[in-house]
């Protein structure tokens, strides 16, 4: 009994990525970076997890999103996609992947 009380169930988090082609320079991504920072702060204020991280590589730019929800239609997603369209950047989005400890079966929220 005490074990159940003492060990809270691990929280599933979700990861997915926007893939942006052609790769974007740091200057062009400034607005995106600002948006990601704001979204992270807003999520923290609401006791939620939502973090976006720019990963700039030579041939592609990624935005790694880590969230406590697999949903990809949050307001922040729409804002982000609008910004990418403003940049005329082609992008695709990967499916969300549950990140859990071994043996834990993820459940869609």
């Amino acid at each position, binding site marked *: 009994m005490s074990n159940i009380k003492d060990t809270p169930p691990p929280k599933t988090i979700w990861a997915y990525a926007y893939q942006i082609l052609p790769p974007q320079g740091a200057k062009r991504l400034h607005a995106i970076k600002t948006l990601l920072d704001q979204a992270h702060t807003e999520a923290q204020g609401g006791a939620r997890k939502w973090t976006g*991280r720019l990963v700039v590589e030579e041939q592609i730019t990624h935005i790694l999103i880590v969230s406590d929800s697999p949903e*990809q239609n949050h307001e922040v997603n729409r804002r982000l996609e609008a910004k990418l369209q403003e940049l005329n950047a082609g992008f695709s989005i990967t499916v969300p992947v*549950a990140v859990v400890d071994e043996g834990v079966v993820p459940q869609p929220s």
Partner: protein
Amino acid sequence: MDWRRNVPILLGVAIPISTAQTVGQNRGPAVISIAIIEDNRLVREGIAALLSQLPDLKVVAGGHSDDTVLLKGVNPHVILLDLGLQNGDSLRVAQQVKADYPASKIIVMDLLPVHEDIMEFVNAGVAGFIMKDATLEDLVNTIRSVSEGAHILPPQMTGSLFSQIAKDAMAKGRPEVLDSVRMTPREREVINLIAEGLGNKEIATRINVATHTVKSHVRNIMEKLTLHTRLQIAAYANQRETA
């Protein structure tokens, strides 16, 4: 099924390509017969005139959406179908045409269908999509590839398709989808720390590794996410073929 972009921009990341069949291995007909279903006569005749200049393409029929009977006896290799037909029911037309002429490959022409539209047309057996603002070269390449058995999705739609598949997966809660990627314990740790809002340097300090090692973990995570998506779409395509 072989989904591929109809533009040369491709780094092999977001677009799954089946290894079972490539364009070069499955040559289409020497001359590709084409029917155009388009309510706008000027557009229809304009497309026909442009395509007929090419020796390997032959427009054999053309008409508006109520005229699909015109395809009888013609059996075109490829049917170009306007998504914005005046009667507004191009999905029904696509389904009917596919049922009546199962051997013909259908290419839908439109500006930008919404997510649900794309999936409905894919489910109806549409083999390709071409945007109305595509170049003639895009259109010709799409026709040739589709006639050879490929399936073409414009890059503008790939994000939509991924989103739709993700949404479907979430709605159905398919465990095989959710379990099909394996992160190492270290990668999971890195993702957890990213979720807390830590930067690469902070993560490096926290788990006692070099910053470039953290970056390497993040790159690996990206690759796995992409691979996961590729596998999922390949599985989806396989399900469609075996259904």
